[in-house]
């Protein structure tokens, strides 16, 4: 996972920008910059060619796809630096997807990201930032006055990136989505990292909290079930993780969970009986993709969704 690149982003169709193109429909089409393993181009050079087109300053959304070419280890650093160095050509950039990379190109847990902190001052109008890949990801200390959506997809999100995201000056944030992953892929966060968030001290306008692909989903569910934050959000998403009946019991016992409008738990290890109890709880519950535990040498394994 994931298997297909985006067809739409920020409400518009997405198309690859290719070298040699000498015009673009800036108002209607979002450009994606990506290269293949045998490409003569680089993503920064494609971006440079695009930025040189008259009218590029109308761009409000950009998608960066596979940047690594035949160098599978290449990080996003050069791409980030190119974006920042062309920031004056994109004064109205509102949405950025950094890493629209499918598993055929590079598995999510192999994607090497970098320090993205220079993006924030360069693009102060950013409303939507989506990043795929957690290796070496850092967001830095940042102020993002208009950010409403922050999505960090990974096979293992470093604690540093979790802390950066939660320390953000983002008063408009409505959708926070973190794929926490496993420590096999560098995910080293713990439930304690979310204490301030759960206590309701951060992000006054938050509406959707998605803590996905978590390999300590039961402990996380127990912590979030008691969170004062739940009183003021509509959607809780604990999908793609290794949630079992133990974590679900904690959710069932929480009056605040019962008052949510949506609870997304798809890809889980719940029993049929537990699923039936959750269905009656109140919120619209997504319980699809029930998984089976596996046993090797007497140990029970419950795999999170990103475990290629």
């Amino acid at each position: 996972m994931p298997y297909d690149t985006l067809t739409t982003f920020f409400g518009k169709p997405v198309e690859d920008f290719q070298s040699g193109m000498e015009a673009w429909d800036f108002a209607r089409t979002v450009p994606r910059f990506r290269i293949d393993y045998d490409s003569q181009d680089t993503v920064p050079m494609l971006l440079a060619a695009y930025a040189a087109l008259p009218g590029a300053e109308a761009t409000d959304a950009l998608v960066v796809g596979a940047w690594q070419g035949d160098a599978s280890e290449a990080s996003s650093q050069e791409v980030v630096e190119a974006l920042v160095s062309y920031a004056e050509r994109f004064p109205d950039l509102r949405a950025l997807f950094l890493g629209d990379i499918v598993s055929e190109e590079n598995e999510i847990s192999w994607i090497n990201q970098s320090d993205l902190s220079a993006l924030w001052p360069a693009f102060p109008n950013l409303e939507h930032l989506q990043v795929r890949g957690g290796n070496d990801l850092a967001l830095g200390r940042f102020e993002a006055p208009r950010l409403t959506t922050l999505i960090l997809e990974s096979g293992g999100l470093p604690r540093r990136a979790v802390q950066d995201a939660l320390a953000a000056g983002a008063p408009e944030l409505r959708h926070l989505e973190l794929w926490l992953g496993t420590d096999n892929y560098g995910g080293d966060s713990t439930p304690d990292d979310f204490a301030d968030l759960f206590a309701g001290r951060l992000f006054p306008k938050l509406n959707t909290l998605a803590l996905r692909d978590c390999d300590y989903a039961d402990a996380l569910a127990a912590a979030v079930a008691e969170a004062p934050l739940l009183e003021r959000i509509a959607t809780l998403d604990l999908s793609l993780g290794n949630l079992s009946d133990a974590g679900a019991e904690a959710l069932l016992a929480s009056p605040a969970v019962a008052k949510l409008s949506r609870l997304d738990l798809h890809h889980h290890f719940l029993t049929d009986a537990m699923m039936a109890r959750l269905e009656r709880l109140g919120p619209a519950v997504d319980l699809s993709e029930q998984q089976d535990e596996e046993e090797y040498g007497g140990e029970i394994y419950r795999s999170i969704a990103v475990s290629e």
Partner: protein
Amino acid sequence: MSPRRNPAAPARREPARRVLRPHESLADAEAGLVLDQLDMPGNEAARTLPEGLVCHRLRAPDSRLEEVGGGLRCRELVLDGSAVARIADGVRIDYRLSARACQRLKALPADLRAGIVDLRDCLALESLSPGLSPAFLDLEGCTALARLPDDLTLRGGRLNLRDCALIDALPSRGCVAQLDIAGCGRIDHIPEDFRVTSWIDVAGSGLAALPDHLAGVGLRWRGVPVDDRIAFRPHELGVAEILGERNAERRRVMLERFGFEAFMAAAEAVELDADHDPGGPRQLLRVELDGDEPLVCVSVGCPSTGRRYFLRVPPTMTTCHQAVAWTAGFDDPADYAPLVET
């Protein structure tokens, strides 16, 4: 998935690319040649470029190019490790100039507008030209560079001055996300109108504290995230706090900042060995560290100055003599028998 054709996009123009072999010259190239890409890595034949060359991406690393001029216009110019001494006025680079380790490079063009300027390890570079306004400027290891131009404008990315020991001042204004002044012992303040949004690497700089206008900015010590006590007030750290630090890199920085000698005394180190040499008594000491290899240090006196030094050595060391031999580069202590120490 078949992407929908962009109705506004005309048919693509086929990009013009040229590769020059190491012994091929550009002598036959006409003036005003237009290329998308010219690759000439390790080229030994060309010393200059043809007049009026337009080339979006020109890569000549490790080449014998001596001068880049002739009004070249490009987006990306890569000259790493080349013989280039001068990039002449009138050369236009939009996106990126990379000229790492160009040992002879002395002159850059005025009003260089590239967003990324990477001049790391250009040892002969003594000054930068006026009108420079990159987002990312990398001058790490430019040890001959004494000052930055007065009108240098930084557009939000990173300024890396690591180990530019001669530079004594930052630009009076500008904004970067990341600032690296590690090893810049003469930089002791950050001007009021110079903003840093994400982090500053302050290891071995002249900075004694963060100025008020940068309160809350992250601190690093040669790449390791630290807090302001580790960076500026290491004497406030406690032994228990250092031993309890989970992150091994950060703990190493804490140890280095606190001082090995003070730490060994406070942590009640175990003495592995003791003897005498011309500098006086020596000790080999060991402290266990949770989740990391033990800290083993040898304490020695300098015969000429009388000062005492604590040197960290590998944890496999068992005698003072072996440890001191290791610090002198000998793996086998039997090979280390100094006649005279100065």
